[in-house]
């Protein structure tokens, strides 16, 4: 029985059990990760998982059931159980549910991949991490760590409306970090970011990072941070590096424009959003430099795909245009509730999880400046980069971020290194203060976006470049 056959059987069984709509995803995922510490391989893990998840809509109640068995009997049973669960949902009914139209695509799609990451010999991959972590130790790191991760996912999607789509998405990435331990505190420097850089791409991404070439520098910087002066406390001009700005976008824009949050569907856990649909198209989100797109079509970015997990094709849309809020991340049912005409941002973390609204690639379009120009134009400020901690409230307004490293900026020059840099603010106030934005854009990948109950881990992309923000509170401490 083929994967499409199993999905088709599950959908048909759900319809036979009373569903007015059903879809099913078979997913096969191979995962590999390797971590190294202080010049030795610490852990090598390989996982392979395959199964089927079926979603049924009975009346206006949803049900979902997942099984690790692709036999005809198991698939049909899963479809029936999904319909039975949907029927139970009607005991606590809500408003009528509709789905915005989605053309019944019959298609195949695959991400670009020059070098199959699972095909690279383990010994080569291990040597890379061993060499980089050994170098960090030689250059003073108390704790030298390296990590790569690979996901190879094939999906087969069938819906009762006629969708029949298969996709093969390969994702990988990696990074290194050096930690130095002093009296009562630790300092860490990472390259290219805390957990590394990731994309829907082959091993060529990891090769291009040239981890070993940066090992000595970050080890030395982690030691230097132990004796660096504390980031001063107060209000100042803040320059963020691109990696940190990517997380700022993720937390204070990406999650805020998720339509399920705006509608209250995540109220008890992930939270809601400060955004009010009545102001879509008119709300001033940020300065006129702020142009944010939702674009799952970017080649190689971590949030890219051909079709989302309810069969909608990847389409680029505006989320914020010249500072004005104009778009959301939506699914077919949430869009119908909101009176919008597009979905396209629904994904599931594996076969056993319900598809839900997730970020794709949510990022800033390039600005007109360079980082050097931004620094040169700043009389008194702090430059921060590489995220160390992140926290934001349940409406996605009040945030506080910590970075690994800061630098004093005085009279247009980057000065001494600062330790424990933090900054805090309120989302729209912060974004309205952005007055310089670089053109040096990188599509940063975030492989650890948590959402949903049961929990799901999403992979998202965030094009971002260095930018300057005026009058930001920095240096918050216990």
């Amino acid at each position, binding site marked *: 029985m083929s994967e499409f056959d199993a999905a088709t059987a599950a959908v048909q069984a759900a319809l036979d059990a009373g569903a007015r709509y059903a879809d099913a995803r078979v997913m096969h995922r191979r995962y590999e990760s390797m971590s190294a510490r202080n010049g030795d391989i610490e852990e*090598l893990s390989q996982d392979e998982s395959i199964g089927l998840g079926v979603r049924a809509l009975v009346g206006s109640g949803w049900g979902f059931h997942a099984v690790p068995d692709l036999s005809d009997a198991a698939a049909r049973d899963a479809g029936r159980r999904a319909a039975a669960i949907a029927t139970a949902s009607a005991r606590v009914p809500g408003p009528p549910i509709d789905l915005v139209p989605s053309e019944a695509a019959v298609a195949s799609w695959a991400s670009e991949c020059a070098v199959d990451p699972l095909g690279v010999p383990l010994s080569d991959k291990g040597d890379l991490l061993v060499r980089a972590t050994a170098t960090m130790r030689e250059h003073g790191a108390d704790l030298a760590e390296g990590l790569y991760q690979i996901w190879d996912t094939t999906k087969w999607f069938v819906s009762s409306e006629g969708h029949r789509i298969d996709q093969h998405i390969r994702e990988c990435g990696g990074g290194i970090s050096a930690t130095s331990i002093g009296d009562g505190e630790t300092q860490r420097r990472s390259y290219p970011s805390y957990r590394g850089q990731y994309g829907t791409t082959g091993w060529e991404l990891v090769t291009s990072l040239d981890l070993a070439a940066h090992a000595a520098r970050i080890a030395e910087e982690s030691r230097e941070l132990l004796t660096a002066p504390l980031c001063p406390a107060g209000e100042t001009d803040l320059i963020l590096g691109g990696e940190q700005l990517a997380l700022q976008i993720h937390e204070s824009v990406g999650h805020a424009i998720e339509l399920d949050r705006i509608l209250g569907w995540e*109220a008890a856990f992930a939270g809601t959003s400060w955004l009010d649909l009545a102001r879509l198209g008119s709300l001033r989100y940020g300065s006129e430099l702020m142009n944010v797109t939702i674009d799952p079509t970017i080649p190689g970015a971590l949030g890219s795909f051909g079709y989302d997990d309810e069969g909608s094709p990847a389409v680029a849309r505006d989320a914020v245009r010249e500072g004005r809020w104009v778009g959301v991340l939506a699914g077919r049912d949430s869009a119908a509730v909101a009176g919008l005409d597009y979905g396209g941002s629904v994904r599931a973390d594996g076969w056993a999880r319900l598809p839900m609204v997730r970020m794709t690639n949510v990022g800033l379009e390039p600005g007109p400046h360079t980082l050097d120009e931004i620094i040169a134009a700043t009389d008194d400020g702090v430059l921060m980069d590489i995220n160390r901690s992140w926290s934001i409230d349940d409406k996605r307004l009040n945030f506080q971020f910590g970075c690994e490293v800061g630098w004093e900026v005085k009279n247009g020059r980057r000065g001494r290194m600062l330790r424990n840099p933090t900054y805090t603010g309120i989302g729209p106030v912060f974004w309205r203060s952005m007055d310089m934005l670089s053109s040096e854009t990188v599509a940063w990948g975030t492989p650890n976006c948590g959402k949903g109950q049961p929990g799901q881990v999403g992979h998202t992309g965030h094009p971002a470049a260095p930018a300057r923000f005026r009058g930001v509170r920095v240096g918050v401490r*216990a």
Partner: protein
Amino acid sequence: MSAELGIAAGVVDLVRRTAGADAEAEVLVTRTDLALTRFANSFIHQNVSETGVSVHLRLHVDGRTATGSGNRVDADGLAALVERTRAAARLAPPDPAWPGLTAPTPVPSGPAADEATAFASPGERAERVRAFVDAVDGLEAAGYCRTAYRSGAFANSAGHTAAGSAAEAAMDGIARAGGADGVARLCADRLADLDGAALGAHAAAKARAAADPVELPPGHYEVVLEPAAVADLLQNLAWFGFNGKRYAERQSFAEPGTAQFDPAVTLVDDPLHAGTLPFDLEGTPRRALPLVESGTTGAVAYDRRGAAEAGTGSTGHGMPGSATFGPIPHNIRLLADPGVADADATVAAGPVSAGVTGAVGDPDTAALVAGMRRGLLVSDFWYTRVLDPKQLVVTGLTRNGVWLVEDGVPTRAVRDFRFTESYPRALGPGRVLGLGRAPVRQPGRVDGSWYEAPALRLSSWHFTGGASG
């Protein structure tokens, strides 16, 4: 022999036949039935269930180690798992620190899994949601009701086997009153012990009491933390402090044998208290581990590898990823110590009748609030993240209700705060002014993890920002 144990033993035998008698293998097979009924805007909007199985194999052969896992349990699937794990081990670097396998050891049976919970129907979960929604009486309701069942079996090539099962139910919901939320959260061994109506009524009373909040200036405040907020303290202490790997790396605040906490603080990781399998990923029996006894740090958690490096034994905390992230206690209880805690604080009192009605919903919290001259009552914490692991400085926000308490009475609802605080320091000697007597088990984000604590009164908590910045 359970089906899971049959699979585990079969994989060990397959390794022996294909990799030779000297190969060391350990196998954990887990079958899961998980279901979660989720509601928002007072209706069920997501309703899911999953049947799953996983086979986790760790193989040490010719001095090299690799780990593999999968969910195919037919003969071809298991053979493929063994083969790819063998291939990975051949290419892995030498592993001179291999700690060896768990020797044959008696494993406790653990609490009996409640069959009615294990295989509860979607209708039974929906009934509790119905009761919660009805009880909020016109407010908006959101949350979940979940049931979980795990049946697991372990076998290794040293001849050790173990088997067990566990069930758990949890309900977590909020009521929403014009932008103010109140929460009720409970984890139990049996679905029958979850009363949706009682939880809904509690959440609704808190939500109504949280209406019309005022903004207070940041600063240091005395606080009473309700059990949901205390659970966050326990979780962060576990991840970053009582984690044997972080301790070995000198990234933990923990100093065993040192009085780092107030004498009122006794923490024990107690997995057999409820809802978990009685052995870990490496087959080590789980048991209660005293982490802090009357304020003195007692122990940190280890898996076999970390324990060998530290020259001690595993504490039964082997888990997927523990080699990288460290072994983490997931079942922590904060025990009241009436002999040490402030006597007034441990006297049960009735619900507070003065001040904001509904802010204090139980006698336990009422007793702590009654002793506070000026401070804040905090229901819950949200999005807590570590700024510095060594001192465990954490930033986060309050959520689901904060009230100003004056002369023992909650007088005003307060807007949410951001805080930046060192958790060990906040619980340090002289800082704990009272512990409640009625612990409440709070569900973790994944089934099998929970944190049980009473309300807690602390002398100071550093709020570093208000809702408006």
